[in-house]
C-alpha cells in the first residue's frame, strides 16, 4: 500500500526535516553567493545595454528575479498553509510562516527596483492606474496582512489555522499578477521570458538573467531553511531529539 514514497512521508517529520535542512544549508548558501556574484558581474559589466533603454536595463537582473520570487514565495506559502490546514501538519504551517517575511522582502524589492527603473523609462516612479503595479502592491499587503494576522493571536495553533485561510484565499492574486500585463496593457511591458517558444530577449541578456534568477532562488532557499529550522526549534522545544541536538550543537 505504498501510495506515496517514504521520502515524501518523512517530509512531515520535524527531526528529519531539521537534519535535511542542516545538510542542505551550506550548499544553498555558498551556491547563492557564487551564482549571484557571477550573475551580477555578467549583468552589470558584460551584458550589452538595451538599444532603447540604454544602461538602465541592467536593473532587469535584480528586478525580474525579485518579482518571480515574490510570486513563487506566495504560492509556496499558500500550498504549505493549505497542507497544514487540511492535514493538520504543524511542519507545513512552520514552512508557511518561514516564507512570509522573505517573500514580503522580495515583493518590496520588486516594487522598489521597478519604480527606479520606471523613472527614466516611463518618466514616473509609480503609476496608480497600472494593473501590474497595483496587484504586486496587493501581494505585499497580503504578505504583511498574513504576518499581522498571526501576530494578533496568542495561541500558535489558532494563528496557524486562521492565517492559513488568508494565505490560501490570497493566492488568486498570483495568476492575476502574471496575466495583468496581457489583460490590461498600460505602462508595464509585456512578458519577456514566459513565451518559452520565442522569448523576446537576446541571449546576451537572457543568460545572465537566468543565472541571477537561479542565484536569487538559492538565496531564497537558504533564507527559508534558516527560518524553518528556527520555527522547528521553537515548536518542538521539548522534544528529546532536539534537546540532545541543542546540548551539543548550540553555537
Amino acid at each position, binding site marked *: 500500500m505504498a501510495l506515496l514514497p517514504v521520502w515524501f512521508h518523512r517530509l512531515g517529520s520535524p527531526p528529519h526535516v531539521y537534519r535535511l535542512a542542516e545538510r542542505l544549508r551550506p550548499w544553498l548558501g555558498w551556491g547563492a553567493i557564487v551564482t549571484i556574484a557571477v550573475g*551580477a558581474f555578467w549583468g*552589470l*559589466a558584460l551584458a550589452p*545595454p538595451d538599444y532603447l533603454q*540604454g*544602461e*538602465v536595463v*541592467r*536593473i532587469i537582473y*535584480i*528586478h525580474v528575479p*525579485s518579482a518571480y520570487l515574490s510570486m513563487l514565495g506566495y504560492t509556496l506559502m499558500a500550498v504549505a498553509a493549505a497542507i497544514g490546514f487540511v492535514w493538520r501538519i504543524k511542519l507545513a504551517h512552520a514552512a508557511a510562516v518561514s516564507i512570509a*517575511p*522573505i517573500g514580503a*522582502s522580495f515583493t*518590496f*524589492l520588486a516594487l*522598489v*527596483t521597478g519604480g*527606479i*527603473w520606471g*523613472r*527614466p523609462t516611463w518618466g514616473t516612479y509609480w503609476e496608480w492606474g497600472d494593473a501590474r503595479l497595483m496587484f504586486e502592491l496587493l501581494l505585499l499587503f497580503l504578505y504583511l496582512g498574513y504576518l499581522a494576522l498571526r501576530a494578533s493571536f496568542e495561541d500558535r495553533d489558532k494563528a496557524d489555522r486562521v492565517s492559513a485561510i488568508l494565505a490560501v484565499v490570497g493566492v488568486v492574486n498570483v495568476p492575476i499578477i502574471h496575466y495583468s500585463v496581457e489583460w490590461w496593457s498600460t505602462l508595464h511591458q509585456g512578458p519577456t521570458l514566459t513565451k518559452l517558444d520565442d522569448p523576446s530577449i537576446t541571449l546576451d541578456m537572457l543568460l545572465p538573467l537566468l543565472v541571477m534568477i537561479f542565484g536569487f532562488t538559492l*538565496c531564497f532557499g*537558504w*533564507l*527559508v531553511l*534558516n*527560518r524553518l*529550522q*528556527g*520555527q522547528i*526549534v*521553537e515548536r518542538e*522545544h*521539548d522534544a528529546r531529539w*532536539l*534537546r540532545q541536538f*541543542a*546540548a551539543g*550543537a*548550540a*553555537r
Partner: protein
Amino acid sequence: MSEFLAMGGHAPYVWSAYGITLVVILLNIWAARRARVRALERIARTADEPRARRQPTVRQV
C-alpha cells in the same frame, strides 16, 4: 572604469537599485540566521534544567 560607474548617465538609477537590493538581502540573511541561532540558544539555556521547571506554572487551587 569611470565609464562603467557612470552607466551611460543612468548611474543613480542602476546603482541605487542594486544598493537597495544588496541591503535588503543582507538584512534578510542577518534576520533569518538570528531566528535560527536565537531559538537554539534558548533551548540550550534550559537544556540542563529539570523538565518540570520548564512547564508553565499552574496555580494549584
